[in-house]
């Protein structure tokens, strides 16, 4: 069935809603929630890394200017 890939409830060619959607099983939902938590942690870690590197770079540059 071609609509099986129609994950967002819209017919891909006609652009109209079909009402079809992917029904996640409770196990899939649970696994997704856990993955989402780790993705969030990864994004926070990335933000922290960018922040720390910015501080280091700024202090190095400031040191260079002062010196």
């Amino acid at each position, binding site marked *: 069935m071609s609509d099986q890939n129609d994950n967002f409830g819209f017919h891909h060619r006609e652009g109209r809603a079909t*009402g079809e959607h992917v*029904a996640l099983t409770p196990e*899939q939902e649970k696994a997704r929630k856990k993955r989402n938590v780790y993705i969030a942690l990864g994004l926070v870690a990335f933000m922290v890394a960018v922040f720390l590197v910015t501080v280091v770079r700024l202090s190095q540059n400031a040191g260079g200017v002062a010196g």
Partner: protein
Amino acid sequence: MSLVERQDMISQESAVWNGGMGSVSDYVALLKPRVMSLVIFTAFVGLMLAPGSVHPVLGAVAILCIAIGAGASGALNMWYDADIDEVMSRTRKRPIPAGKITPDEALAFGITLSIGSVVTLGLLVNWFAGAFLAFTIFFYVIVYTMWLKRSTPQNIVIGGAAGAFPPMIGWVAATGEISLDAVILFMIIFLWTPPHSWALALYKSGDYAAAGVPMMPVAKGAKSTRLQILLYSLVLVVFAGAPVLTGLGGLAYAATSLGGGALFLLLALRVFNSRAGEAGSAEEGELYAVRAGDKAARDLFAYSIGYLAALFAALIAEHGLGAYLAIPGVSG
């Protein structure tokens, strides 16, 4: 049937989706954590040994990016090799053949992490290192996995370069350039890969044959492989002395290289004199499971990991812990 009735019928349908079942540990398994740990270690060595000092934060970010890039390569490798992994007992339990993660999910995961690690390393550390990491991922996934692995028994000789790049990336992350010492670190891992991989292939040759992968024991036979292991081991052990000549390695490294190299050669000679690889694969899929005749190959495989780790640990001890003692008349 009216349009409204048809819409109602459709709205009650739900597409079945087999994905989305992967747990966090399944995704971690996709990153090949065992390989990743070796990459982290060797990249750290490159970063530590590079001249000058790198800020700890920048160093940590660089190592993290290199590790994630290596993991992404592993995920893409598992995506492409899912058909092979399903056949081989050693890899049958990996997340894709085990049905825990779909190939599409692994592909998306690998590409996302590849781009993320390269861009982050480029933006936060330096773009030479970022480009080098991108090239390494390209080399491992495209050159090794997609091209060489299934087409030539020299697959791991050439493809081994991908596993040898991490200390160079670490070095470039610290200095922004490549030097002779960085190339020496690369060469040590490059020469180490064939005897290490072929020792494993000897006692898992049945696995590789079943999967149609032309590893050396499958394509050229066990006897030829045992000879090549010995020859590569000899070249490796001799070359492992190079850091002493450039002054990168001191007395502790020289002693480790000599003692470790002698044992490496002894084990390689034991493999050469054995009938390893002639009995097919071990029946069980575990990495170290082995038939009686293949023990010499298994021992060399296990020892080779310790040998490489010891060489690099000696360099870290000398440069990071102040244990460096120059050898008069040899090293600077």
